[in-house]
């Protein structure tokens, strides 16, 4: 019998959207309020996981053809790059900088090198969580 998960699919679509956008919010909120790269990454993986759980594994893979091994690698490279960046200016490894800029239309914003670092963590967390789960779930034996 072919089952039809209409309810599940519809709700998943809406909820996943909310979770994913919330995770982006969490990521940027991390500078001043709870959130940040790790939590944002986990939340993002939860959103994607929901998609994987309700739809078929292969279906999502055609829509989102992401190689999570590469995501981990890119994340680590960004992280190490942020660290090396400060050495170019003669500061120790992983020195972070910040300053305030006024950018239209946001007004005055704080820009900091912790953001790329947090992106690195975000990417690695997403990559690790999904790579592990998908590998185990996709195992044939």
């Amino acid at each position: 019998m072919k089952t039809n998960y209409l309810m599940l699919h519809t709700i998943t679509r809406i909820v996943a959207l909310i979770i994913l956008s919330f995770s982006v919010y969490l990521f940027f909120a991390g500078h001043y309020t709870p959130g940040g790269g790790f939590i944002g990454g986990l939340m993002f993986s939860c959103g994607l996981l929901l998609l994987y759980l309700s739809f078929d594994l292969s279906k999502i893979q055609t829509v989102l053809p992401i190689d999570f091994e590469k995501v981990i690698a890119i994340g680590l490279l960004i992280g190490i790059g942020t660290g090396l960046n400060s050495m170019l200016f003669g500061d120790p490894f992983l020195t972070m900088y910040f300053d305030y800029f006024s950018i239209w239309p946001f007004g005055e914003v704080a820009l900091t090198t912790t953001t790329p670092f947090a992106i690195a963590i975000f990417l690695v967390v997403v990559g690790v969580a999904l790579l592990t789960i998908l590998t185990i779930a996709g195992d044939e034996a």
Partner: protein
Amino acid sequence: MSLLHYLVLSPFILAIFIPFLYKWFRNVHTGWFILPLPVILFGYLLTFVTTGQGMDVVMETVPWVPSLGINFTVYLDGLSLLFALLITGIGALVVLYSIFYIANKKDEPLNNFYVYLLMFMGAMLGVVLTDNLIVVYVFWELTSLASSLLIAYWFHKEKSRYGAQKSMLITVSGGFAMLAGFSLLYVITGTFSIQGIIEQSAQVISSPLAVPAMLLVLAGAFTKSAQFPFHIWLPDAMEAPTPVSAYLHSATMVKAGIYLVARFTPVFGGMPEWFWIVSAAGIITLTWGSISAVRQKDLKGILAFSTVSQLGLIMSLLGLGSAALYFDAADEGQFYTFAVMAAVFHLINHATFKGGLFMAVGIIDHETGTRDIRKLGGLMSVMPITFTISLIGLASMAGLPPFNGFLSKEMFFTGVLDATELPIFNMQTFGLVFPVLAWIASIFTFLYCLIMLMKTFFGKYQPEKLEKEAHEAPIGMLISPIILISLVVIIGFFPNILAYTIIEPVMNSILPGFEFEPNIYHWHGLNTEIFMTVGVILFGSLLFLNLNRWQETYFFLRERDPLNQVYDKGLDGLITSAQGITNIQMTGLLRDYFAYMSIFMVGSLIVTMFWFDAFTFDVDFGMMGSVTPYAVIIVVLLAVVSLSLPFIQHRVSAIAVLGVVGFLIALLFVNFRAPDLALTQLLVETVMVVLFLLCFYFLPELKKEDFKPKFRWLNLVIAISVGLTVSLIGVSTLAMSQTDGYESISMYFIENTYELTGGENMVNMILDDFRALDTILEVLVLGIAALGVVALIKMRFKGGEDV
């Protein structure tokens, strides 16, 4: 960052682009993109070469981890300049040669090859150009890594993998020892800077840690430079493509050990232990290597052992020369510096003739399909240019006039003869051993050079034994060896062009404070050295003529070094014992693992706490804040839920209940106003529950298990002791913080977070800024763990195969 910093980093930067260049320009050999780099670097380095008056020493610092005294300091003096010139100069020639040696075919992963080669080049430049011991160590291990990747370039061959593993195991463990030695030096002097340590060398020598530190540093140098008995990796490393052999094993990697010994001569030189160990290891390696080379049937095997023995020669000269530091410069120390000069000169000569010879052998291999001297012969008329190259190179290696090898070998003889006159370190007693061994080794050196020449180029040409129709190599492959061999001739005729430009600055860095007259002459008159050379030629020829008679002996029939057995047995033993231990420990039962972990944790914690007398229960309850009713409710709930866990029979419900525990802990975090932690805990818990459910999907139904009563009691004891220990430690910590008045570190963060990072979320700023190094390493661990999962699940053997 100065230009020199970029010089060290430039190979790595270029390496990033190689995969793209390889992909986009499939028709162009990737080597052409590499070639400009070493040429430019070589040209730039040449500008530092002076014409007398000593060179200016350059030192530039970029802080890396300044709080630990680790800085990326570039230091360029005579010694580093010589090595950097060798690395880039010979590197350029090798790249040019490799373009013609490794064909631009689909199944040749050229991108990998050149990325490894660049990695290696950068790592070598890093080793010789940095002043900080930790940075030196990092680059040092990187050379080991890159070289084993290069050796295993044709990884489908089992011998390549074996050779790569061997070189890695031996050189990396030597590197670990070296790191320990560096740490001891730090303990003695309080600095990681080599120049700083040299300044305090008197303090180093008088320290009781001097001998252990020296031995550990030498372990690194000896493994890398293939000194006896660590030399066994070098012949097996010959499975690498020939350009790699020419580069790594004649000019660069194996010379890293020589560099290290030379670099540390101002520190340890003058210590009798240093003198004896370095010179004895060198002379033994020289003799053993030259005798072993005669047993080889493979051209590259002969060259490998010849490299081993020549490295021994340089090493022993450095050891003998270090005696100079025993005296003051003004004293008679001047007299003993000659050996160091011979070492430096021979280092340069060896790089030129051995590089050329390796390339010539590569050409023979490439054009005939074999390197076995039993199959080769009569190539003189077929490959006249290669023959000329080999003839000059071999003559130089055998120490025949008028080539540069002759000059440095004469100097070597002078060095060992001088050594017998040393009035120190009991030299009169053992001194005679040095010239005798040196002379014997030279006879065998002459002999294997003769064998190589005669068996390859003279005799009968046997095309039926060769895989290919032999013919001369294309011009591109000949350029590099011709340049190197021309250097052999030029240096042979005009050795003094190197005297004040290269050799003197090098000597100034090895033996600071001495004055030198680095003049090299062809003719010294009829002295002992000349007679020794004549004897070498006579005896060598005699042995060659009677080759058949004594080469049938058991010792000479075996091609492989008997020491290999020790290595193989050791490796086997390591694997068997590791498997044995693993079998005891890895029962495949999760509860066993938990039991082991808990017992270990409880044991170590209790021992530590008692050791430091840290158990106190003197809690002042008046100083504690009040407990909210929410907290009480959550804790009670937690206890109830945890206690219900063991009674659940169904797997999925067990997971769900475990999830409840996690969520309750998150609530507890909320109660204590830690929203970040709570959020993290919630999300981690969610992901973990999904993960668990997935894993359990593949497992059979949970069965009611029969435990023996004894086992059950044991479990109870473990569980209670874990709980008790953790609680006791919690109470003690509280009591201690009340009585000893330790200030909480959180105040620092509360006060400084906004000032220093511009962020207000303290937890996040600690993660991303204050302790970013921890974070990046944790994330790295996560990544490795995920790759481990992939490797275990996707790449496991199918069926009942075991690893």
